[in-house]
């Protein structure tokens, strides 16, 4: 009755393979690897945000909180405990999942209340981690430095792997009963309960997955950057970019966030490097225009023509 798992996953496997190929070869063609790295980071973050927003309807405005938590967990474990970088990176998503568990009660809130409370929560993390009183523990506003493990090539490769992994997770969300259950919850949580869907548990699972993705992205970002200040990994701009990229491509799909992040981040650098202040204007207009005319993202232009978008 249902297609085999391979048939269902095929689009995702192909997408992941193409992304892996593109980003593995790209540095040979274009060697600002910081830019390529950032593009991958935003693909991962947009997709991670999509896992929550696209499938459950919860828009995490403070998504950057998980990113920053992952970055700091990794950096501090290297600095303070001198853990090998691999272990320290593994701790990134764990730390962000712990934060997500603590913030779990926010999922009781609906819609905009959730978003704004999540935003406040990310600000709290930022203020606490960047607090001068905690300088001895977190480095406070003076930031952290792990240049002894600085390795742009290896961290780049790790980010390629993360892009693949997050594409496969999104494929699972898109093509599995689990994902269908999440969609049902987003449509109507009460009816979903009445379809035997364990709403609270599944929502928490999506929340944790989404947080872990951001935490891992943050961990790799910390490794790649090796010197950073709290505002570099907690700036609201990161949430904003992830939201705009995902919305632009189209949430609830696998390709949407990839296309949104890829296109817009490239545009950002085309315009943003020379005239950054115009970019904010363009983003603003883009958001307003999308909500008013294309709330499902650019991929909905295809959907409307009856083309099934993966």
């Amino acid at each position, binding site marked *: 009755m249902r297609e085999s798992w391979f048939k269902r996953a095929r*689009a995702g496997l192909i997408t992941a393979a*193409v992304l892996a190929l593109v980003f593995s070869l790209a540095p040979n063609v274009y060697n600002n690897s910081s830019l390529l790295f950032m593009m991958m980071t935003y693909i991962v973050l947009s997709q991670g945000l999509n896992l929550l927003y696209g499938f459950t309807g919860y828009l995490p405005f403070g998504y950057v909180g998980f990113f920053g938590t992952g970055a700091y967990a990794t950096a501090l474990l290297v600095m303070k405990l001198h853990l090998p970088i691999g272990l320290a990176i593994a701790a990134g998503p764990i730390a962000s999942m712990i934060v997500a568990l603590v913030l779990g009660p926010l999922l009781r809130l609906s819609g905009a209340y959730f978003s704004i409370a999540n935003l406040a929560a990310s600000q709290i993390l930022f203020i606490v981690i960047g607090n001068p009183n905690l300088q001895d523990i977190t480095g406070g506003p003076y930031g952290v430095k792990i240049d002894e493990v600085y390795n742009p090539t290896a961290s780049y490769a790790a980010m390629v792997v993360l892009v693949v992994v997050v594409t496969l997770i999104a494929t699972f969300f898109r093509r599995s009963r689990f994902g269908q259950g999440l969609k049902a919850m987003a449509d109507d949580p009460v009816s979903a309960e009445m379809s035997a869907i364990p709403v609270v548990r599944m929502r928490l699972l999506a929340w944790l997955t989404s947080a872990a993705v951001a935490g891992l992205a943050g961990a790799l970002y910390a490794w790649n950057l090796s010197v950073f200040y709290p505002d570099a990994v907690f700036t609201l701009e990161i949430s904003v970019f992830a939201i705009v990229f995902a919305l632009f491509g189209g949430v609830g799909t696998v390709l949407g966030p990839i296309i949104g992040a890829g296109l817009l981040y490239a545009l950002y650098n085309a315009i943003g490097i020379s005239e950054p202040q115009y970019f904010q204007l363009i983003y603003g207009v883009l958001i307003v225009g999308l909500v008013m005319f294309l709330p499902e993202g650019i991929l909905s232009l295809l959907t409307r023509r009856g083309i099934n978008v993966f």
Partner: protein
Amino acid sequence: MKLKQFRLAVAMAAAALTAAGAASAASAPSVIKIGTLYAGSGNFAVASQAQYKGLQFWAKRVNAEGGVYVKAFNKKIPVKIVAYDDQSSTSTATTLYNQLITQDKVDLVVSDFGSVLTSVAIPLAKEHKMLLIDPTGSSAGFFKEKTDYLADVSIPSSAVWPMPLAKFLEQEHIKKIGIIYGSNDFDGSQADTLKAEFKKIGVTPVFDHAVPTGERNYTVLLHSAAAAHPQALIELGYLPNDVAFLKSLKSSGLHFPFVFTIFPGQFKQLMEKNVGADALKYTYSYPAPPMIKYEKVNLGMNTDQFVTAWGKTHKGAEPNFVNAGGYNAGILMAKAMGTSPKFTQLGMHQALLDMSGKITTVVGAYKLSPTGAQLGQRLPIAQFQPQKDGSLKTVVVYPDSHKTGNAIYPSPAG
């Protein structure tokens, strides 16, 4: 998945790459490319643009003379500045430094103003084996190990800035001291130095408080400080902090016998415009060139020449210290290119080291350590003393070698 979908997936994923940009051309010896960043907005905008203007000023003058003399090619080559706006953001700066190095393939990288925006350039420069010319990033943390890829050229390491201040306070027997400082490398390392110096003479600050770098309202903090009754209140901040601090101090109606801030000594005109001469009177600061003059220089213009030349190209405006710092970075780079037998990063670094201790410029003595720190100039202490006509006179009160008058302490109230 249908074939159509597959094609779509491939095309969309590939779009990211195509859009990311075209390959860049290799650098030609027909022009020397100097890459730098400036902040069009944010915390560091004002100071950063001042430094950038100083660098541009240098480039314009050099090009008017047919370019910079490069010994390795034995000819003059015009200079081109490649600059991007990092909006005071370290993450944007990271991408942009990388852009300068990998895409624009600049010949030399000059970091943006201040320690925060310089910090991210240091590992990048090291990774790409590029010499980072650092005009104003002076955090003590940068200069801990020997390196070939970092040279602080225009201002002393911020850890040594407050030494004369500590000595002056000791000389004046001021023992009850309050410190308010921005929590960033620049201000934090100065606060650390001050506290360490005080400790040596058995003084513990009666008020010691860090504020966020973005702090704009000191009203409440000033009342808390006043409750500790310090004789001297020292505020270490960036330019916007000093503006806000002095404004809050004035509107609060509080009075302290001795008030010190960093930036009025570098941006006196701007400060007078922003906070009023009234708020500045009797306060102390580090007077920086061109406020203090270096007449005998052996590289570039001396202070008076610099002020005059600047005025000619800037509608009569007076340059500030950071303008001079940007200019100074330019002339030192030019000197390095003019003396290094090889046009390589290591060659130019060696040339910068070889010049150490032999050169005085518009910002004073130049002395580069093997860790990249600048040890040349020490900043004196000056007080802004009101004159009969209501103007403020910058009186250098310490050390004796620069002294132009006596400090008025305690400052009269009202």
